[in-house]
């Protein structure tokens, strides 16, 4: 594979002449991950995703080609404990002692913001693979770029989907966590829904870590909505579904943030999870492939989905299914490699500038940033639905591997064993 890569006539010929940098033996990407504390699940997934991507770059892709050389890609990480205090010192260590060439930002918007000034001060690129907030990109950080779709877009695709399959559905209820992330998500959703002519009958939050959502759900039940969207993180998302079941709060479709994305959701809720949708940055089974890239007139970069899954299992073990946190982290690594190779340089500014013009596809989807802010505008969310114990991608059509099941079975039917699969 290596030789083929080198033999390929690419613009590198030209750039090679320009490249006067003294190149290191290898390229180091550094990052802080939340391996303990409240984001440790996401942190663990990200780590596996990153490791898989790095392995692909080194072993399959043959390294990163810069200045005619094939440089090995390395990754170094520290645990930030999901706490803001730790981020800056660890990022600085990555930059100064470990001499990291590029950085991956930590999970969550808060931690991403905490590390940004250090990265910016040292002029090192700082790619966010878990900081979804749109506001990060309003702050004027030149070196912060985003690989995942921003928070405001999380629930819009679901609303598009409902609009497309059921023109009669009118009433939407929104119940979500009172937190920075979910508020951004549902502000975006509400705006979108109203633009599409939906009526938002309930727009209510619950505080983080609730034990009982009954008060809220009773109110929702009384409003009798067609569609319910909500959620925030893992625990409350699971609780939301579980208590809707308790109260037999039925709707034609339900979409919950974050929680349904993990297999643990189905394990926890059993048959009650049937038919529940969720937005994902990515899902196993999305149809981003070299072929679909060609169709869209884009270059495809990185492993195919199958290749990625195989590499992922090498690190995570056979039984673990990657969540989108793994994929978005992997995609961030790939985006770096793509940008470095296109810039044919390790220079931060050159790479950053190149990024402005990049538009390509990976197994994670499209990658294109808004040049002014660094915000991701190419990537699209997918909607998945639990159907017969499997997570199927149902939207957008281009990425889907199943049809949406609509309306979903009632809780009563689910208790009797009905699944969200067409007979």
């Amino acid at each position, binding site marked *: 594979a290596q030789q083929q890569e080198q033999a390929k006539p690419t613009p590198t010929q030209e750039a090679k002449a320009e490249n006067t940098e003294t190149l290191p033996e290898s390229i180091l990407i550094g990052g802080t991950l939340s391996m*303990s*504390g*409240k984001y*440790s*699940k996401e*942190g*663990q997934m990200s780590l596996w995703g990153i490791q898989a991507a790095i392995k692909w770059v080194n072993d399959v892709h043959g390294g990163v080609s810069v200045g005619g050389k094939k440089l090995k890609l390395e990754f170094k990480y520290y645990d930030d404990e999901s706490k803001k205090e730790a981020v800056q010192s660890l990022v600085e260590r990555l930059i100064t002692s470990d001499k990291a060439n590029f950085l991956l930002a930590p999970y969550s918007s808060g931690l991403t913001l905490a590390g940004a000034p250090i990265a910016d001060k040292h002029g090192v690129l700082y790619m966010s693979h878990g900081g979804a907030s749109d506001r990060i990109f309003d702050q004027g950080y030149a070196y912060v770029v985003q690989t995942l779709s921003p928070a405001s877009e999380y629930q819009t695709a679901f609303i598009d989907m409902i609009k497309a399959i059921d023109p009669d559905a009118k009433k939407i209820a929104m119940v979500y966590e*009172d937190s920075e992330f979910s508020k951004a998500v549902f502000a975006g959703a509400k705006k979108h829904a109203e633009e599409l002519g939906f009526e938002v009958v309930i727009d*209510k*939050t*619950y*505080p983080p*870590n*609730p*034990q*009982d959502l*009954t*008060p*809220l759900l*009773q*109110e929702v039940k*009384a409003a009798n909505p067609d569609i319910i969207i909500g959620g925030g993180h*893992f*625990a*409350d998302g*699971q*609780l939301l*579904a*579980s208590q809707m079941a*308790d*109260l*037999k709060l039925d709707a034609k479709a339900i979409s919950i943030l974050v*929680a349904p994305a*993990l297999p*643990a959701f189905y*394990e*926890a*809720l*059993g*048959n*009650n999870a049937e038919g529940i949708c969720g937005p994902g940055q990515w899902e196993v089974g999305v149809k981003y492939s070299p072929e679909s890239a060609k169709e869209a007139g884009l270059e495809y970069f990185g492993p195919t989905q199958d290749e990625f899954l195989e590499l992922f299992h090498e690190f995570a073990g056979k039984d673990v299914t990657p969540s989108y946190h793994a994929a978005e982290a992997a995609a961030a690594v790939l985006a770096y490699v793509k940008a470095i190779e296109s810039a044919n340089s390790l220079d931060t500014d050159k790479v950053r500038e190149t990024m402005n013009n990049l538009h390509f596809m990976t197994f994670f989807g499209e990658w294109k940033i808004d040049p002014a802010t660094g915000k991701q505008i190419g990537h699209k969310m997918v909607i998945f639905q639990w159907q017969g114990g499997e997570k199927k991608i149902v939207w957008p059509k281009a990425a889907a591997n199943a049809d949406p099941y609509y309306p979903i079975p009632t809780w009563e039917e689910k*208790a009797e064993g009905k699944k969200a699969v067409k007979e």
Partner: protein
Amino acid sequence: MVFLEQLAGNLIYGAILGSVYGLSTMGLSLIFGVLRIVNVGHGPFIMVGAFTAFWMFTLFGLAPIGSIPVAIVLGLALGFVIFYTVIRRLLNAPELSTLLATFAIGILLEEVAKFIWGPDHRGYSWNIGDVDIGIILIPYSKILAFISSIIIAYLLYLWFQKTKLGKAVRAVVEDAEGAATCGINVRWIYALSFAIGIALTVASGVLVTLFVPVGINPYMGHEYTLKAFVIAVLGGLGSPWGAFFAGFLFGLIENGSYTILGLIPGVEPFSLTRFVAFTLLLVILLIKPTGLFGGDSK
């Protein structure tokens, strides 16, 4: 009408949740009452109980109610081990040093749980039907949680008031040296109370999952620690029954105030319910500085 119906429904769920809160606080209160230890690692023990219920159900299909005895045995074992390895050495140290120790123990439990079981948010679905009481649907599993909490609390009460050992615990609380002169093995009572306190807490973790059968993860304890503290104080520290009733009250307030706060425009009423609950705590403490059922203030 809808308003009242919703309020009634909320209060019913609040009472059920409150009974679980109450039980989960009794252990904290007992340990404080006997050993004057504020167990800041309280929540992680609830987490251990929740995982016990989860694994017993997932691996052996044991109904969560059935894992209460398992949780009690596990809790007793944990309690004794922790007492004899750590707490015993700190009995004569300044009060706050035990706080540091329990903090560390809490972290240790969380991290060990994460190490063994991973950071996943787990859950189980134990569907045994529900009952429609007209106002609201209640799953039988939640009713079971309610009944078991009351039974366990009552059994503890009986044990305390009626058995010789229970009385010895009370005696040690009141005057440890005096108890020694009666032939009571004070060190053993300390160990036993600590272990029972932990066992109660772990058992309450099982009941917590009956109410919230999802979101079981290594860090789930934090939220409960905080609430348990507040409830323990509300009930009067060191008084396990006070804790039980205060838990009840707390559940009712949290849920009940929502319906009313919902009438205020432009706010997030659910977040405000917590504000109300905590504010009420302060007000009660101002009126009665030792909590609703508390005696001395030391």
